[in-house]
């Protein structure tokens, strides 16, 4: 009950101080950036100019041909000699032509010339693979290599959201809860609390509550404004709660070692940096050494990703959430233990 009153009071105080508005404004800025600034996909949209000879067309069914012509980024041209000119006009494009020569299928790829070797190879392979799937007549050796089993893909834009949510709920909580604690120490109000029947854990739990409300409101709001109803909100809610409480408890433990915010800064910074490492494999799929995989931020960012997928791995989301909750309880207990000894000294 006292924890509840403590929570209500802290909520009131937080609405009268700056941090909560900084968080809300941050979230709104993120929303604006997502909605108005970021393109759906970051790699530039290439246009492909295609020439298909009549002899090749014979192999295609009516539907295949139509599908080909309706492909958004493809422009079908009537003469392959037109392609170089078109490429010159549209620098963000490539061309390819398909025709028969001596009974063999030939495909030419026309590139701009500024592409590096790697890019050339990549495009060539991409086109061949595309052909193979579209026409079905190419015996293609090329295979897609995917890193994860599920090959559902988020757009580049949405792909950033899980990382933002992790930073906003877990890291901000870690940082802000310590500023609240140090503010109370500074004001001396902690001493006034210490001479009442209320217990340290009640005080700390009140703080966890305030950070949770802030994190939930900003997290849910951001996602809703960007994604509308295309998200699994129940999973998101559970995950937000778990990761937020985890972050706050870590922040509590951290701040229990220091008596003012300046002294805690470097430790705080280091912790956040280490946590951030856990998100690297998310952006650099080939890179996931064991010491990064053991960071809680690793399952955290991938769990956040799941809630945006059409078919999320629900088990994974809830297993990670459970893990964060367990870690949070342990960290909270340790923080409580330490604060009991040091909070008024």
């Amino acid at each position, binding site marked *: 009950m006292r924890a509840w009153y403590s929570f209500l009071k802290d909520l*009131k105080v937080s609405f*009268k101080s700056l941090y909560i508005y900084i968080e809300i404004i941050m979230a709104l800025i993120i929303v604006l950036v997502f909605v108005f600034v970021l393109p759906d996909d970051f790699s530039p949209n290439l246009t492909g100019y295609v020439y298909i000879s009549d002899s090749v067309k014979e192999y295609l069914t009516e539907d295949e041909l139509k599908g080909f012509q309706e492909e958004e980024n493809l422009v079908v041209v009537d003469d392959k000699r037109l392609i170089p000119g078109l490429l010159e006009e549209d620098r963000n494009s490539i061309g390819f032509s398909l025709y028969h020569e001596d009974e063999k299928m030939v495909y030419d790829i026309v590139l701009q010339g500024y592409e590096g070797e790697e890019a050339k190879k990549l495009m060539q392979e991409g086109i061949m693979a595309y052909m193979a799937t579209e026409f079905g007549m190419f015996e293609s050796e090329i295979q897609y290599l995917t890193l994860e089993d599920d090959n559902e893909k988020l757009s580049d834009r949405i792909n950033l959201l899980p990382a933002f949510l992790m930073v906003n709920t877990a890291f901000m909580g870690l940082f802000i809860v310590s500023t609240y604690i140090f503010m109370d120490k500074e004001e001396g109000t902690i001493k*006034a609390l210490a001479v009442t029947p209320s217990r340290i854990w009640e005080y700390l739990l009140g703080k966890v509550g305030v950070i949770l409300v802030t994190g939930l409101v900003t997290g849910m709001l951001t996602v809703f404004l960007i994604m509308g109803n295309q998200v699994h909100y129940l999973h998101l809610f559970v995950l937000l709660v778990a990761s937020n409480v985890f972050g706050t408890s870590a922040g509590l433990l951290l701040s229990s070692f220091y008596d003012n915010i300046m002294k805690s800064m470097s430790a705080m910074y280091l912790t956040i940096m280490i946590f951030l490492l856990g998100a690297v494999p998310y952006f650099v799929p080939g890179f996931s050494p064991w010491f990064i995989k053991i960071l809680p931020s690793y399952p955290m960012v991938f769990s956040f990703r799941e809630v945006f997928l059409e078919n999320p791995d629900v088990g994974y989301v809830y297993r990670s959430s459970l893990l964060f909750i367990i870690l949070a309880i342990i960290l909270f207990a340790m923080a409580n233990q330490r604060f009991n000894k040091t909070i*008024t*000294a």
Partner: protein
Amino acid sequence: MINVEKLYYSYTKDNIFAVKDLSFQVKEGEVFGFLGPSGAGKSTTQGILTGLLPMQQGKADVAGFDMKKPPREMFNRIGVSFEQSNVYEKLTARENLDFYKKLFDVPTLDSLELLKLAGLDHVADKKAGTFSKGMKHRLTFIRSMINNPEVWFLDEPTTGLDPAIASQIKDIIKDRHKEGRTIFLTTHNMFIADELCDRVGFIIDGVLKLIDSPRNLKLQYGEKFVDVEYRLDESTKKETLSIVKEEDRHRLNEIINTREIELMHTKEATLEEIFIKVTGRGLV
């Protein structure tokens, strides 16, 4: 109500003690004044007795609770006012008190009544952050009595207040005394101590030099003087005479017998003078 036995405390956990070998008792219903210059160890002692500082060495119990590991319930029965005011600056005076009330398991006093008592009712709904130092101090003071404490710890309750308000605070303390509360009063102010305290303790450099009632101290250490004013050839003459010294006593007798006396009163040594006499140090 308060028993302290051979109490030591070191902030640095070494041989530099902020309080040393402190022993004293405060009886139920007594106002005990803790007097000493800055840095003497007054707040440190209060800190230990209110559980804010850990018990390092020695023994102390307050309201029957051992301060080695005081249960949280103890805090329903004590009240603590701090030398540095510590209120939520972002909350109003009333919100501060209303929140504090909810932390106790015992009946509490009405917030507005308390604010009236300290002359803060007109700013009840203003943020404490906008208050003057003295106003914050008064808020801290009345907050400490919200749970009707049996034992009331007051660290410098009148410091920094103007005389009118200080006297208001003094009256509140007197009233509580009449109700039989036990009060541990830390102060620099000898007049307040003299007026309010049943007994006082002089502490200096962490050591308790002396404990007694102000009256006994004056009887024991205060040399008494008499101021007499009498007529002498159309004008008024004034003399200050000791009633202890033989010579002065004869002179006093002579004046009383032969002159027309206009005014005569005894003058006691102040607690401050006694403090200086006993400890060899001033009170600042």
